């Protein structure tokens, strides 16, 4: 019996006097494709960062306190070999002023350090990862010259290059056009099919969530629902997560 991909026990995170997450208990089976949905400030990114094994002090500026427990593949997130987890941060946090080529970004995912020189083997593996997401032509392009969608693909390749067993993405569809978004889901599903990896993806797009995900986690500082998309995205659950649904529709778009 394999361990669950992700399991949390009464997990809570507190920033100063703000309780960002409380009472989060989850059991996510390996091979699931989980869409994480919830309003702004619902603690979605914070949950991913806890699962990445970041110190509470690094979740955000200032002090933070963690209560409860999280496990990834049956181990504390920090104890996990870093190569098991792939992570794609929010596109708005990417620093495009760093002088780098797309290929170097992908190699950094392989090496877990910045490359001074790229070996032929690394070049081969990184190019293959870029090819996998339809971005082989971007390999020699500078970061500053990439569009939002192109950058997103390079980061996806960067996370896939280490062949992670758990892939976590923070709003990967933001700043990507409709075609790019469809491609993104295609690449994710293709990777999942050949590797059996577990995918956790934060999204504001319920349509995509219900279409591509095997499960939806509806989060608003605690678990509102974790179920099949059709069940979790019912009207009642959504209104519990977002206050009232009419308002919720405009809120995610602004972000």
């Amino acid at each position, binding site marked *: 019996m394999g361990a669950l991909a992700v399991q949390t026990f009464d997990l809570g995170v507190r920033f100063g006097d703000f309780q960002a997450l409380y009472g989060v208990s989850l059991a996510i089976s390996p091979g699931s494709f989980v869409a994480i949905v919830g309003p702004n400030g619902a603690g979605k990114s914070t949950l991913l960062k806890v699962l990445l094994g970041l110190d509470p002090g690094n979740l955000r500026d200032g002090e933070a306190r963690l209560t409860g427990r999280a496990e990834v593949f049956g181990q504390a997130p920090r104890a996990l070999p870093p190569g098991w*987890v792939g992570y794609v941060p929010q596109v708005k946090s990417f620093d495009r002023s760093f002088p780098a080529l797309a290929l170097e970004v992908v190699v950094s995912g392989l090496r877990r350090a910045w490359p001074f020189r790229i070996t032929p083997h690394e070049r081969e593996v990184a190019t293959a990862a870029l090819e996998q997401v339809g971005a082989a032509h971007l390999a020699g392009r500078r970061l500053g010259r990439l569009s939002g969608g192109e950058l997103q693909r390079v980061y996806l390749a960067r996370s896939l290059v280490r062949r992670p067993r758990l892939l976590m993405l923070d709003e990967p569809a933001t700043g990507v056009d409709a075609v790019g978004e469809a491609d993104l889901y295609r690449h994710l599903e293709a990777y999942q099919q050949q590797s059996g990896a577990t995918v956790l993806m934060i999204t504001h797009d319920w349509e995509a969530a219900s279409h591509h995900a095997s499960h939806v986690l509806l989060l608003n500082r605690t678990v509102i629902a974790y179920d099949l998309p059709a069940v979790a995205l019912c009207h009642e659950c959504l209104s519990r997560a977002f206050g009232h649904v009419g308002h919720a529709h405009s809120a995610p778009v602004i972000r």
Partner: protein
Amino acid sequence: MLEALQLPFMQRALVAGVLVGAVASYLGVFIVQRRLSFLGDGLAHAAFAGVALGLLLGTQPLYVAVPFAVAVALAITWVRERTNLGEDTTIGVFFALSVALGVLFMSMRQGYSADALSYIFGSILTVTAADLWAVAALAALLLALLPLWSRWAYATFERELALADRLPVLRQDYALSALVAVVTVMSVKVVGIVLIAAFLVIPAATSRLLSPTFARMTLLAVAIGVLSSLLGLFLSYSLDTPSGATIVLTQTALFLLALSLRGRS
């Protein structure tokens, strides 16, 4: 020009200028990409307070200035990590504190403070053999730390990804700012407190304009740092101008050249 090379003080000045140019430019690429350019200014003023305290105590000023500036560097980093004040604000606070302390120490000292001026504006021609050894030791230390380049670069590129990959990012922050403090104090004799921040920022910024990759940026920055020290010192010797200012003007000329090259491509 060649007879200048025969003069012992000129030889020491050249070696010191080249080493400081190389070391400061190397750290500068991290400082510039981490948007910490202001840190050099803040620490230069911490060096001023440290030198003033050293002169007041009547010891060799650099013995006091190095620990003082390192303490300020660590304090800046500590406050930055613990609060959500921006680094510019944090540095601004310690900058002001250092200047105030420096002025206080100077005023407590009796007598003429011409020697203090040589620290404020630099006087590379008074570099002693001991100064030279100190700078050489620092260069050797950074050479030994060269294998850390790829980890420092990774955290500079994307802090969160480096944290997720279990890099000791916090320790790096402290190490980098302490090293910048040491470099700043060591360079004071060569360029002076007023201009030392230029050594950290201008070669790296110039190189950034011309480099597609971080590896290239690092190499080119060091080359520019060394070249502008050499060029500046020769100009300073033949034109009889202050050495620190001439080197910084040379760096700025190269920066402007890079800007115009970039505009054309």
